[in-house]
């Protein structure tokens, strides 16, 4: 499957911890620049034919995600409470395979807008939140957004949305074919004077970079793409990194501590191999791309005498400012069949309400899309007033193909007490101290989500829906967009990494993934994570060449 293999006793130029959206890109960029690279991945390496259309396994049995039975977490709302293990899946869920969460994402690829980077100075301060500017601007990141679209592969229609930020190139592929949900969403939104547009998706609409077009199987989110049409790292940048003959992807390798020497430099990583035997890989530098939950966990579990609060944590910000993407939406039933189980999940998006508007009386903004879910997940819940068993329930089940969803995806404010840290008692199956999650929605996030529910209902009403079911806005108890926990900033006293993703405290330790994000964006963070990864990879390679690591 792969060529280059390194011995643990060899000192490689870089270890990249994590093989997902960011890790794959960083590894490719560093390897192409001439560096020796070992990518450490907790999970297994799966071939296309290993992925199944099995909703039960992937949605309910942690088929490719972190499993609460072996990788447990605890949760609480307030720091004063004792965190408890929760029933069902972990509060913070991510894919634990080569490719990481890029293997199972829905593939919605939205760029941030210019405003996302400067909301702190434009809209802050906000009580109870830490809304600050990014140390970089949209203009600085724009070339890397373009790089993602062309190097990784994104389909879409440039310039279609009046709210699109400036771009230097169009998408390399046309948009995916529209589904009935997209047509109805577009119809309703246009009637209201809004501006829906073809969804930018990291899914091939035509053959691209030797990968086929989407076969429209309908199972994107939560699943991996067995024909490699979805632009997941495992099918895109990982093979390209390996093609350099300088990069080894080491699957089933669970990094639990970063090695440090007395000079305060990282020396490599301690990890458990596939036989759960402890190993140590030597390296000149370490880049952690393990996601917004595992990255802070690794730093906090790597405390030493010199770094008693965890590595790179002189600011105390490691693990803090955890953000998801709160949002609200509706389900709607129409007269004729939509068959939403067919086709890529999202085909129309709308950004009219992207910016926060002080007139609403709360902070928050977001985008909307028309989407669908798999039948197994859909069948579990019924709308209010619909029988949940008996002949009335059966009639509801028979209506599955007549339904669609409008989903609002919005902001979550950074709150200092919302965080990932280490549970004082719980350990995982490897004996590694487990993560504890503390999270409570900022009141503005809840208000904005409820506001989105109302907008979604208006759009579906305008589209002629026969029945509209508003989604209830509950308190967040976890998420899959794991953001902000090692925030980027210029000030070492308040941030963890600098604008090049280097930790302020450890010169040869870099972090790049959702944890770097300073604000949450509007719901689809992966393209930004990948743009940051291309940028970080480029700069880290330059630093290495100039002997500045």
């Amino acid at each position: 499957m792969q060529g280059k293999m390194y011995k643990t006793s060899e000192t490689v130029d870089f270890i990249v911890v994590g093989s997902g959206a960011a890790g794959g890109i960083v590894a490719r960029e560093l390897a192409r620049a001439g560096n020796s690279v070992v990518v450490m991945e907790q999970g297994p390496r799966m071939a296309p034919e290993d992925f199944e259309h099995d909703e039960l396994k992937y949605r309910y049995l942690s088929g490719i995600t972190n499993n609460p039975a072996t990788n447990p977490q605890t949760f609480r709302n307030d720091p004063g409470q004792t965190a408890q293990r929760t029933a069902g899946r972990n509060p913070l869920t991510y894919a634990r395979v080569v490719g990481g969460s890029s293997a199972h994402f829905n593939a919605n690829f939205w760029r941030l807008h210019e405003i996302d980077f400067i909301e702190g100075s434009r809209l802050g301060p906000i009580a109870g939140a830490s809304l600050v500017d990014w140390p970089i601007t949209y203009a600085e990141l724009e070339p890397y957004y373009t790089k993602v679209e062309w190097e990784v592969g994104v389909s879409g229609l440039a310039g279609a949305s009046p709210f699109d930020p400036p771009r230097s190139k169009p998408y390399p592929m046309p948009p995916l074919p529209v589904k009935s949900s997209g047509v109805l969403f577009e119809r309703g939104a246009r009637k209201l004077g809004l501006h829906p547009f073809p969804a930018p998706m990291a899914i091939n609409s035509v053959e691209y970079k030797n990968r086929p077009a989407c076969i429209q199987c309908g199972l994107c989110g939560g699943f991996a793409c067995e024909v490699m049409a979805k632009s997941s790292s495992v099918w895109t940048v990982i093979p390209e990194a390996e093609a350099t003959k300088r990069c080894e992807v080491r699957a089933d390798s669970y990094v639990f501590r970063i090695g440090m020497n007395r000079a305060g430099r990282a020396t490599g990583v301690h990890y458990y191999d596939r036989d759960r035997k402890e190993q140590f890989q030597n390296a000149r530098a370490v880049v952690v791309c393990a996601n917004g939950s595992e990255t802070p966990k690794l730093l906090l579990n790597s405390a030493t005498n010199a770094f008693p609060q965890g590595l790179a944590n002189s600011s105390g910000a490691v693990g803090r400012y955890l953000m998801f993407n709160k949002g609200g939406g509706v389900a709607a039933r129409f007269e004729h069949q939509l068959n939403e189980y067919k086709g890529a999940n999202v085909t129309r998006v709308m950004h009219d309400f992207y910016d926060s508007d002080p007139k609403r009386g709360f902070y928050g903004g977001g985008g909307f899309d028309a989407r669908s879910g798999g039948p197994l997940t859909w069948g579990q819940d019924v709308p209010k007033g619909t029988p949940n068993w008996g002949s009335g329930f059966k009639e509801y089940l028979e209506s599955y193909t007549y339904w669609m969803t409008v989903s609002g995806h919005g902001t979550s404010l950074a709150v200092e007490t919302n965080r990932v840290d280490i549970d004082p008692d719980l350990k995982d199956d490897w004996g590694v101290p487990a993560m504890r999650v503390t999270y409570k929605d900022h009141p503005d996030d809840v208000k904005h989500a409820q506001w989105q529910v109302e907008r979604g209902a208006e759009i579906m009403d305008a589209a002629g829906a026969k029945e509209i079911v508003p989604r209830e806005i509950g308190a967040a108890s976890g998420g899959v967009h794991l953001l902000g926990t090692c925030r980027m900033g210029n000030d070492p006293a308040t941030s963890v990494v600098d604008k090049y993703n280097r930790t302020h405290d450890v010169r040869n330790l870099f972090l790049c993934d959702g944890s770097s994000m300073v604000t949450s964006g509007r719901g689809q963070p992966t393209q930004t994570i990948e743009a940051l990864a291309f940028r970080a990879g480029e700069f880290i390679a330059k630093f290495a060449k100039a002997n500045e690591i």
Partner: protein
Amino acid sequence: MEHPSPSRRKFLAAIGNLASVSWVSMNWPQIAVAAQHMGHGTADTSAPPATLSTLSAAEAAEIDAIANQIVPGGATPGAREARVIYFIDNALGSFFAAQLPSFRQGLADFERGYAARHGAGKPFSAAPEAQQISWLTEIEKTPFFMAVRRLVVLGLIALPKYGGNHNDVGWNMLGVEDSHVWAPPFGYYDRDYAGFVPYPGTKPYTA
């Protein structure tokens, strides 16, 4: 593998409509293999469980009767015809084994309550339909009933290899066709879509 199965032929035909001929000829063996592992249609060679291995026959009869009221048969098949009971038996003996003790306790409470109300002579499963519905209405908020309901829905719609969804009864009920490849039009509303019309002041452009 010399003679492609019907589902594989269908799959390759659909792929041919969507990807370039050269790409398919280069890569189709891998794609075809992938398709066969999707768990759809004839892809699954292992027979789904069709005997009880965890629940006793008496327990299974009671659960099956409850399932038959949660998603009743009639003009079209329901949970019983989908053989959801084999899914539940399989689940409680394997991936949901941790739930088995509380599930059994819940069933015992269910039967005790039923006997107290309607007499111990006959089990719930032997009762007339109206009596079954009446009793289930009384206990529909209990954790046990909710657990059975959850398992029934899972068993109805999950892949047939887990024991339920026999003959695609669940998918047929929902209107889901058993395939893993689709091409537009997908539904009623995208059939006559005229194409995206740009907004005034915008200039959409492509590569």
